[in-house]
Structures are given as structure tokens and as C-alpha cells.
């Protein structure tokens, strides 16, 4: 740091980047009832699946930014600098509707990536009994998502492909179970085909099953219907969706042996960086923890305990 004689918070030799940067919308793609918004973000570090960013349209009438999971990342194209970061946005309230309408060239404040991610490394270090490590020939990773909860898992599948290429520890098989409310929500599916095909080409068993609540797209039912058919002893599971869905998924996990599960949970946030204490939710042991700092990814045990835990969360992302 420079001597403080005249420093009014500005410095010619900045020792680091600013926390909030202005990104630019480079692509907006409607996927049924959702929008995939791609923002060119300067100075972005590579995100891990489950991490989020606080984003807010420059000039928005909404006061606070909103938290969105990182959906995918692409390198900048020729003539651009930064990273192309995609977010999946579902209409929840005025702020999300505003972002969905943002056109190419719109400026967006971005703070991120933030929060605790899904952690394949921790998973692959864990023992699954009798000294055997997870990641062996029979090991499976189940991805379970509802609606816009699919967002973090596109990045996960892309990172998984990187792990296969790098011969890093990973599951022998990945199974993606996606549940949708209706067929417009299911339009997000298309984005998942390429990374699944890539995993398949790399020789990893990768499969996706979908189900739709109102029967307007394929099989009718809830994602937990799929899960109850697919879940086996010893599976690892990453889940993102509505709180009630996460609880139901955890309840199912408890009916099998040695299933480890992690959940990306949601709460209304103001700052996203641990300051305001606004996004707390109760854990199974009664502690209040911040979704932005201690989460958003929690293990099933810490979030829900040995059995389902009644947990009320304020509406996020309006």
C-alpha cells in the first residue's frame, strides 16, 4: 500500500482489483420461460459450480443486486477482455424480469464469484466405508435439480469434463435428474446435451432423465419420483432447487445406505459478501448461518439433520 499522505482511497498503483466491476451483456437467449444472460466480466476468476455472483443492471430502479448461480463460463472472444459468464434467470419479481429484458450491450454491475461451492475434491477424498475412497469403478454422482435450480450444474458438467481430461478424481458415472414445472421451463434442457455428449465422448458414463410436474413435457411427476427409482446405496448427490424439494430429496437419501448429499440453498440477500447478516437460515442444530458465506452449498446433515427439518426461508431473488 502507498504511504497515506494524500491517499483519498484512490491510488495510481492499485494493489488489486475492485470488488464490483461493470460487465456488458454480450448475449441474451430466451429458453422457454427463462433467459440465459451472458455477461462479459472483466477480471473474473474461474468459478466453481455452486458459486454465485451478485448482479444488478446499471441504472436499475431496483435498489439491491440479486444473487445468481454461475451457469457457465466461456473465454472472451476476439477483441474482448474478460470472461463470458452466463446466468440462468427465471422470472421471480421485478429485478429478474428487468434482467431478462436486458439487451445486448446493457451494462451490469457484477460482484463475484462468491460463496461455498459444490466440492468434487472433498467428495473424492471422502471414504465410503471399509477404507474405500469415493471415485472407484462403481461410484456415481447424481445431480438433482428443479427448474432454475439446474443453473449451477451446466458449469459442473463442464468442470467434470475438465477433470476427466486431467485424470483428476471424479465419479465413474454421472446421472442428471431434472424436474420442471411445465414445458416452457424445460427449454433449459438443450444446454445440457453438449456437456453430456462431451463426457460420453470422453468415456464417462453420463445420462440425463427429466420429468415434468404438469405432464406437458415427457413424463409427468416430480424429480423425487425419478430419484426414488435411481438412487442407490453409496451414491453422492448434488442438489439445487426449491427448499421443499431439497428437503424431500434429503429424506430420500436417508432411506439408502451411505448416501452423501449437498444442497445449494437460497435466501434473499442484500450484500452477498457476509456483511449484512440478512440471508441467514436455520441449520438442523438451530444455528442461523449466512447463505452467502457459510453456503450456499450445505451438506444434508448440516442443513436438514438426521431427519427432515422444518425450515422457512424468505423468498429470494425477487
Amino acid at each position: 500500500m502507498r504511504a497515506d499522505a494524500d491517499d483519498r482511497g484512490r491510488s495510481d498503483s492499485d494493489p488489486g482489483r475492485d470488488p464490483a466491476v461493470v460487465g456488458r451483456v454480450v448475449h441474451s437467449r430466451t429458453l422457454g420461460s427463462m433467459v440465459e444472460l451472458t455477461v462479459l466480466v472483466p477480471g473474473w476468476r474461474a468459478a466453481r459450480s455452486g458459486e454465485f455472483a451478485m448482479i444488478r443492471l446499471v441504472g436499475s430502479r431496483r435498489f439491491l443486486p440479486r444473487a445468481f448461480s454461475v451457469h457457465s463460463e466461456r473465454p472472451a472472444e476476439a477483441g474482448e477482455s474478460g470472461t463470458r459468464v452466463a446466468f440462468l434467470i427465471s422470472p421471480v419479481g421485478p429485478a429478474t424480469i428487468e434482467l431478462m429484458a436486458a439487451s445486448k450491450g446493457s451494462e451490469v454491475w457484477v460482484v463475484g464469484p462468491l460463496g461455498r461451492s459444490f466440492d468434487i475434491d472433498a467428495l473424492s477424498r471422502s471414504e465410503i466405508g471399509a477404507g474405500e475412497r469415493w471415485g472407484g469403478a462403481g461410484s456415481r454422482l447424481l445431480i438433482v435439480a428443479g427448474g432454475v435450480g439446474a443453473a449451477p450444474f451446466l458449469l459442473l458438467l463442464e468442470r467434470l469434463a475438465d477433470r476427466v481430461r486431467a485424470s483428476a478424481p471424479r465419479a465413474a458415472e454421472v446421472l442428471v435428474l431434472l424436474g420442471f414445472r411445465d414445458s416452457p421451463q424445460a427449454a433449459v434442457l438443450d444446454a445440457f446435451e453438449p456437456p453430456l455428449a462431451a463426457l460420453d465422448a470422453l468415456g464417462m458414463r453420463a445420462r440425463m432423465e427429466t420429468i415434468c410436474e404438469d405432464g406437458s413435457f415427457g413424463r409427468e411427476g416430480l424429480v423425487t419420483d425419478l430419484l426414488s427409482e435411481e438412487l442407490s446405496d453409496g451414491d453422492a448427490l448434488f442438489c439445487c432447487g426449491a427448499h421443499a424439494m431439497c428437503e424431500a430429496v434429503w429424506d430420500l437419501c436417508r432411506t439408502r445406505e451411505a448416501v452423501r448429499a449437498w444442497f445449494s440453498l437460497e435466501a434473499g440477500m442484500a450484500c452477498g459478501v457476509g456483511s449484512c447478516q440478512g440471508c441467514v437460515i436455520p441449520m438442523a442444530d438451530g444455528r442461523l448461518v449466512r447463505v452467502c458465506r457459510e453456503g450456499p452449498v450445505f451438506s444434508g446433515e448440516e442443513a436438514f439433520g438426521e431427519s427432515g427439518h422444518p425450515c422457512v426461508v424468505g423468498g429470494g431473488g425477487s
Partner: protein
Amino acid sequence: MSGRAAQNIDLTTRLGPIELRHPLINASGTFDLFEVAESLGLGEGEAGTRLLLDPPFAAYVPKTVTLAPRRGNEPPRILETEAGMLNSIGLPNNGIDVFVERELPRLLGLPRPLILNVGGFSIQDYVVTVERLRRALDEQTSSRPTAAPWTERVGLELNVSCPNVHSGCMSIGADPDETAALLRAVRPLWPGLLMPKLTPNVTDIASVARAAEAAGADALSLVNTFKGLAIDRVSLRPSLGGVTGGLSGPAIKPLALRCVYEVAATVEIPIVGMGGATEVQDVVDFLACGASVVAIGCATFRDPATARRLSGELADFLHSRSLSMGDVVGAAHR
């Protein structure tokens, strides 16, 4: 960005014995420097590292600490409203003993003055908490006897205005006599800057301000949030777990400016003005109404380095208008 000439503008200001490099500090409870820095990353060149090396604020005001640990209010705790937000956080903290042991040492290592913030539920609570804080400061700074006394870099804000706890605090700040009694009790225990934070949820904030000044306050900070309420559209019940909450953000700026204006007209001691300041013009407005320091609150939720931008823009403003800080502070009263 700022021109070279604007960089020569003198933004320094004083709050009692504490000199500030520019007039922007954070509002207590809206910016947790260590948590934000860790969130943003502490690697070389990462935003968190920069925040710790070069905090955007001229002084750092940590969250309120109370005598006993507090869990805080049940969620939901926050809600965006038109041009602002409601919060019902309820002063969660680990209590003074953990604070002096774990927080104070690293706070004293920051390259900025500190304005610690204490809340309580009775005058006795404040007395015990402030005594422990002072003892810890004497101990933790005694290893550097040649350095300037800690009173030049550590001040104390008394939170007598939290709207989200059900006893003490705001009930003290709402009453001129109680406020004066608290200050008379704490004044002999605290050798440094002593600054009560006033609530706007009163009929006549100037009378509370006068009582605080007469009882020994060195400065005043105002305003805390306005008590408000929101209804959930589905349940038709209050949205927040704490039922009522404190309203902040641009929505309250004209109300806060009025409070600062009325208080500045009646006291001689310096004022830290706050309430919805988001852009540089808001900062200028508070200064003009008589604040010599402006606290940035929930604007930091959008951008943790808001104050860095605003201090630069304030220098630009003064330069472009050929004004000094002295010309602007209190201009509305002349």
C-alpha cells in the same frame, strides 16, 4: 476518473481527536471488512486483499457489540422496498468478551482509525461493556508506548437507536433524559471520541441531540433507520421475522437530511450524517446540512468499494466548483 488537480483537493476532516483522510466512513452493521475481504478472495491482486490493504472508508465502524452474545432476529431479515430496504437483523454478535479477544486485535491492525460501536439494554449494560472495551484497548496498545495514544485512532459510537430489539437501545435514544443519563454514566469511562447514534423515530431529534451534547458527547451520528413494516402478499402477514424493521436507502434521504439540518442548527459538536447516501450529490447534501462526516450504509451492499468511488467524485466536485470542504459543510445554514 479524477483528474490530477482534483487529487490535490484537501478532503481531510476531524471527528474529535481522530483525523480522517476523507469524510466517508461506513455505517455500523452494513460493512464487515474481514468478511467481505474473505468473500472476495485474499490472493495476490484479489479484491479482498486490496480492501484490507486500502479500505475504502476513512474510518472503519464494526457492527454493534453487546455485553452478552446475541443470536439476532429470526429470518426473513431483509426485504427490498421502493428505493431502499427494510432490515430486521437484531444485533447478532458474539458479545464483548469474544470481541475484545478475537476481533479487537485484528481491528487495531487495520490501516484506518476505528469507531467501535456498542449497544445495550440498560445503562448498566453499556457501562460494563465500555469498561471492558477500554481495559482491552489499554492492554492491547500498551506494547507500543511510543505510538500516539489510542484515543487518536479509536472512537466509540453508542448505539441508542436500534429499532430491531425489543428493549433498551432505541428506548434510550428516544428520550433526551435517558440519553443524557447514559452519556453521563459512560463519559467518565471513555477517554476518546464518544458519539451517540441517534434515532429518527422521535418527535424532536434536536432535543435528544442537545441533551447528548450537554451530557458530554463529542460528536453525534444520525440517523439510524426509520421503523417500518411490509406485508407479504401471499400470507398477508408481516414479511419480516421481526415483524417491524428499519428502513434505509435513498427512500429515507430527505428525512435524514431534515434531521441533520435540525440538529446542526442546534449543536456545536461535529455530526456524522447518514441515511440513503448513494451518489456524490447525496454526500454533498449531508455536508451542506451540517455533517462534517458522512456514513455510507446500504449503498455498500451494491458495491463494497462505494466509498472509494465517492471520495474521488467528491474531490472532483469540489475542484470543479472551486470549493473547499469548509465551504460546503454547513452551507445550507448560511
